[in-house]
């Protein structure tokens, strides 16, 4: 179990601000979409936006971008599992 020395990445404030503005805009889109009648897409839209937002937070704020590939790949695993769980929960609505 070799522990490599942790490397700290200094990320400039500009990047953080840009990501933050992106998150605010996406929140705005979620709220706007919530007041529109999108039919079958009314659940999928906010879920996809939420996924994108979570991705941004993980990637930039939680420094996943600077981690080894293995961690980025492993992250896909719970994302796939959750997609299956949520998919199996919600597909039912279109058949009721």
């Amino acid at each position, binding site marked *: 179990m070799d522990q490599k020395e942790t490397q700290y990445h200094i990320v400039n404030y500009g990047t953080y601000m840009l990501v933050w503005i992106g998150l605010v805009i996406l929140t705005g889109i979620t709220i706007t979409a919530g007041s529109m009648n999108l039919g079958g897409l009314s659940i999928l839209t906010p879920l996809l936006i939420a996924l994108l937002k979570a991705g941004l937070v993980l990637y930039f704020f939680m420094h996943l971008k600077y981690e080894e590939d293995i961690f980025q790949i492993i992250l896909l695993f719970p994302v796939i*599992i959750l997609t299956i*769980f949520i998919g199996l*929960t919600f597909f039912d*609505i279109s058949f009721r």
Partner: protein
Amino acid sequence: MADEAVVSNYAGISFYEEKGRYSGLLSWVFSTNHKRIGLLYLISMLTFFATGVFLGLLLRLELIAPGKTIMEPQTYNAIFTLHGVIMIFLFIIPGLAAPFGNFFLPILIGAKDVFFPRLNLLSWWLFISGAILAIISLFTRGGPIDTGWTFYAPYSIKTGTNVSLAVFAVFLIGFSSILTGLNFLTTIHRLRAPGMKWLRLPLFVWSLYATGWIQILATPIIGITLLLVILERFFGVGFFDPAKGGDPILYQHLFWIYSHPAVYIMIIPAMGVISEIIPVFARKTIFGYKAIAFSSLAIALVGSLVWGHHMFVSGQSYTADWIFSLLTFLVAIPSGIKVFNWVATLYKGSIELATPLLYALSFIFLFSIGGLSGVIQSALAVNVHLHDTYWIVAHFHYVMFGGAGFAFFAALHHWFPKMFGRMYNRRRAKWAWFILFIGFNTLYLPMFILGWQGMPRRYYDYLPQFHTGHLISTIGSWILVSGLILMFANLIHAFFKGVKADNNPWGGSTLEWQIASPPPPDNFDQIPLIEHGPYIFGTQIFADSRG
């Protein structure tokens, strides 16, 4: 076979005699030693189990005859909820993984402790805090909850009983389960002894590995769901209220996404223990090692995708119904693979009918009845007839008590001499098993028939035609409890006054039998070097040792 070189040279102390920063009770509740934490779980869980049994006994007594017998309907509702919550969340979900997994996982893979010992202690503290909160919820505003252990919306949102605190308690217990799963997975990945390749892992370890993944991936979902119930009760958000755009079936989905895999959290480690016991008492290497190991993973995977079968009559679409029905049929395959492999292991074995094997054999019998009745329920048309009847109660108790419960007792009798260094009275243990087995079937078999005849579950009263079944069942509960009392009396007596146990009383071949009974604080003086699989009888496990 005991390795004389390792065992006889050992002159140190056991983990009971280890001196730490604290003494007395504090040396237990603040210990980070995996064996002490395992025993903390064992003692706390057995206390909850005894409480759950007592409540179950009261329920059966109420149902001995139609009409009121010993309690009011509201009390009955509270007691069956409490019986369920205690048995599910405080006994059978931590089940075999928390006590026996903690105690034996590091030993079985040749490690000195789990990967995160402090996190391990935190798990127990979360577990016990959740349990204390659950008890407090009984005596505070609103009183004991009456929703059933499933906390179904909309009733759980509307009832005046103390649902918020009780579900928060379950939330904490869920966290404990996640941390244990995380800890075990990391331990299995990182702390295996040199030479302990994946396909040399004992099968109990494989079962803990599969369970760990379910605990990590599914438990957060019930955590969120329970928080939604609390939010709903305090702020009336409307997640599950159609009047506000919500959906009550959403609650059932979210609840069962976790709670169906949770039954596999309960049963997979049980299957792991059975896979350990059978080769030891058949004196044969396990038949189909890979099939058993990978079927644990298959059960974990497929079992996570079958939850919709709880909603066949809840208004879910027909398309969802048949997809979940198909997936449910599929999960029987890996379970069947295990049963056939166990039976094949016994074939032409040199069988010693010791108590652990008797429990293991009755596990196979009872679990097969429970499992196959599950296959019957997963047929859509039949399910409409059986849904929410006593059939389900019977099925559930056969898989959970007859399955996980009997495996728990099997593990307890198998590993008792290792954990406590003393041996119980074997004759008495066999008698207790016999009474327990008879009592179990007298208690639960009539429930299949009652359910088939149309007796609904959770009802306080019933029509006269169901009287005979209920009467037999209640008599069965007395026999069962007699067996339990004899079993625990025997074990408690052995704990204080039993004869000293050998290091390897059963002639087991896995690593726990190669060290002293009870084990030393750090398990191994030297980390062993593993050169072959776990179930080779008649040879030494330790070909060499490494510092």
